[in-house]
Structures are given as C-alpha cells and as structure tokens.
C-alpha cells in the first residue's frame, strides 16, 4: 500500500511540476519565435 502511495505522490508531484515547466518552456520558445 505505501509503495503505491509513494508512486502516486511522486507521479502527481513531479509530473505536475514537470508538465508546468514544459508548458513554460514551450511558451518561451513560441515567444522567441
């Protein structure tokens, strides 16, 4: 059970943070043309 929760928390936390950084990177690239 705790292993599952660890995987979920890491996936949600790191996943959401990584996704947000990726969106920022894409927006920055788009801005610079």
């Amino acid at each position, binding site marked *: *059970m*705790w*292993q599952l*929760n*660890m995987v979920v*928390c*890491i996936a*949600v*936390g*790191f996943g*959401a*943070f990584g996704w*947000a*950084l990726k*969106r*920022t990177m894409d*927006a*920055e690239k788009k*801005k610079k043309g």
Partner: protein
Amino acid sequence: MAEIKQGGDQFASRWGLIATVLGMAVGTGNIWRFPREVASNNGGAFILICFLALFFWAVPLICAESVFGKKTRMANAGAFKVLLGEKWTWVGAWCAMVCVMLGCYYVVVLGWVMKYLSLIFTGFLTQVQAGGTDLTSEVWKNFAMTPPAVEAWVWFVAAVLIAAAIIVRGVQGGIETANKIMIPAVFILLAILLVRVIMLPGAWKGLEYMYHVELVDFTRPSVWLAAFTQAAWSSGAGWGMFHVYFVYAAKDEDIMLNAFTATFGDMVAAMLAGMVVLPAVFALAPDPMAVMKSGANGLTFVNLTNLFAHTTGGFVMAALFFVALFSAALSSVIAMVELGCRNLMDMGFSRPKATGLVTAFFLIVGTWSALDNGIFENQDMVWGVALLMVGLFYSIAAMKYGVEKLWKEDIAPCSDMHVKWMWTVIKFFPVEFALVWGWWFYQSMTWYPGEWFKFWPLQKYAYTPGSMVVEWTLLAVILFVLNGAMAKKLVHANKLD
C-alpha cells in the same frame, strides 16, 4: 488621487521569474518543517491532503497576489490603494509589514545555517564523532539558546548584509541572477542527497513511514488543518511576496501557469526533503520518532548534525544538506527584503535608499530575535499566524474588486491554463481561513490555561493569543494613523507597458 508616475525594472526572462518565485516559495518550510509535519501527522494521508491544499489554498491566493502586482505595478500598499481606494492603503501596508516583521526573525535562521556551514567546513563533525548529541546539544545551546546570543547576532548581521548586497543590485542583476543559481542548486543537492540516503541500510523504513496511509487519518481534523497550514506556510501563498515579484513581470506573463508551477515546485522540494530527512533518521537514529519530534532546531542543528557525523560520507552529506538549506533560506530572505524595498520605492525612494532603510529596519528589529530565542519564538508565532490573515485580506480584496472581473481582464487573456475553478475557489477562502486560523488561535489558548490573554514578558507568553492580538493591533494602529501620509506618497508605479 495623485498621478501615478512611471519607470522601472523587469525580469529578463520567464525563467528568471519562475526561479525567483520558486526561490521565494522554497525555504525552511520545505526542508525542516515538512519532514517533521509528515512524522507528526502519521505519514501518507497528510501528504495527500497537502496536494488538495495546493488547489484550495495556495493556487488561488498566488493568483490573487500576482494579479494585484501585475495589474497595478505597485507593491502591497500601493496596489490596495489603487484597486480598492485610499482608505485601504493601511491594510496593504499591514500585509507588507507582517511579511517584513517575519523577515526580521527569519533571517536569524539564515545566520544559524551559515554558522553551521562554517562549523562543518572546519572539522566540527570529527569532534562530534567523539562527543555525540551531548556535544551538538551543548554547542547549539551556547551558540543560539543562551541570551544574549552574541555570536548568533554576528551571523545574523552577516546574513542581512548578504541579502542587502543582492537586493541593491536590482531585479535582473541581483534577485534574478541569485535565484537562477540557488534554486536549481537546491533541487540538485536534495536529489544527490536522496540517492545517497536511500542506499543506507534501513532507509526504506523512513520511506515506508512517510508514505504509509491509514484511512482513519482522513477523518482526523488535526491532519487536515496541519496540511492546510503546511501549504500556507511552505508555499508562501498569501504572504504578499508573489505580489511584489509580479510587479516586475512581463505584460503577457501567465499568472495561472506560474501559480501552478510555484506550488507544485514547492511540493516537490518538500517531498525531496522528506525523502532525505526521514530515511536518514530512520536508518541512523536509535529512536527515530524522538528525533523527528525534537523541533526544527533540535532536528537540524543537534540530531541531523550528529547523525551525519556518524555516517560514511557524512561530511559530504552534511555539506550538501546545509548548502541546500542556506540556498533555500537566502532565496526566501531576498523576497522579504525586496518586499520592503518595493513598498518604499513606490513612495519615491531610490533602490539604494530603500535597501538601506529596509536593511537598517531588519538589523534593529531582528537583533532582539537573534540575541534572545524567547523573542524569536514569540515573533515566529505572532507573525506566522498573522500571515494567514494577510491571505484573508487578499481574498477579500479580490472579491471586493471582482473575482469574475479579474479572471476576464487579467488572468484568462494571458493564460495557457484555462482552469477557472482553480481561481474562483478563492471565494471560499474565508471559510478555510476561519477553520485554520481559528484552530491555531484556539490551540494557543489551551497552551496557557487562565493566562491566554497575557503578553508580557514576551518570552514567558511567547505563544499567547494576548501577545498576538497586542502586536497585530499595535502595527495596525500605527499604519492606520499613517494612512493619509502613505497614500499621498504612493505614486511611483513600476510601469513597463
């Protein structure tokens, strides 16, 4: 109303802004508070509720702050004046002063970390191998816990001067550059430590404790309240600092995406710290729970220092840990000093003059906390709980101006994330506030049966509702009296558009 004058600073890139807001959010709340709170609240359920708190507490408040800064190009006091009217100026100033008062004692912690970094690099761990916790306790007690703590004061002064030296260089040359180095460093150092720590025999027990879930914990109000408090005190949402950094944001800066990045970045840093501290303590300490419950100072400066000294490669681990803690603490102190400076710059002071005045204020007020830990504890309680009220004022201000109006005019047009509910939940913030703030206020009453209304001497009644109300009211009265004068001087916006 006087004409708003223009001219100012801007972040060089979106990365600069993101590093800076992460620097503000990631601080001691992640590295030494989060692991202790996980331990005190029985692990996994607390972490899952922390994720919920990000959506219902942190994201909407960060959006409110950011939109106020970007819309008005003025710091807290000026923005409340421009958006809500001159009679609200003192409320914005109160919000700013709460954060500055918090900064005055927070910088003391940065001084402590600098002292321990110097100890680690001068062979202290070798002595601890022989002396154990008896020695680390004695060194800590003599250094910071015995008033007047003169050596702690010297390190405090050095910490204030370092922050001032960065702030005086301006947004791009100082704040942005420093955070672009320090924030990636915090994540990288914690990741390296994590790899080392999970290789220790028995480290998995720490991870198991951190992530195990007992369903009954979801029914415990104290776990929910602790998780929402953690979100409030760790992310920096509703402190007024996001507001100040968004004064320097580009016109098309994405408020919603930045709020999301900052909150989840803060949570990732906290989880990394948890996965370093808990496994290290469970692997190395004979009684892990006693260590985790030894308070922030006891955990970091007494117990972890001792555990590192008795581990293979402990010098490198201790150095990485304290450098990460230093970077996290300094990046947060920078935000607090800048908040004070920006408010003064809105009144027409140049950056060097504003930095000088704020530095002097930090040195004068923070001195009492540096010299006497009883005062430090009092300030930590008084202004920590006051920060929750700053969040309330931001939510009220957003509702007064118009939640829908702010979404349509300022958030939605520049956002890639059209998740409106994450913003509109700010309407429920007063209810969340009443529960969390009320819980803290009630708890502090129970700690002093029959004496909860007393406030003097501050060291004796450090956590009483009496001392909180007296200090909050004193600040409010001073700022209310100065309202007209402040409103008249607040005319220097950082207009870029």
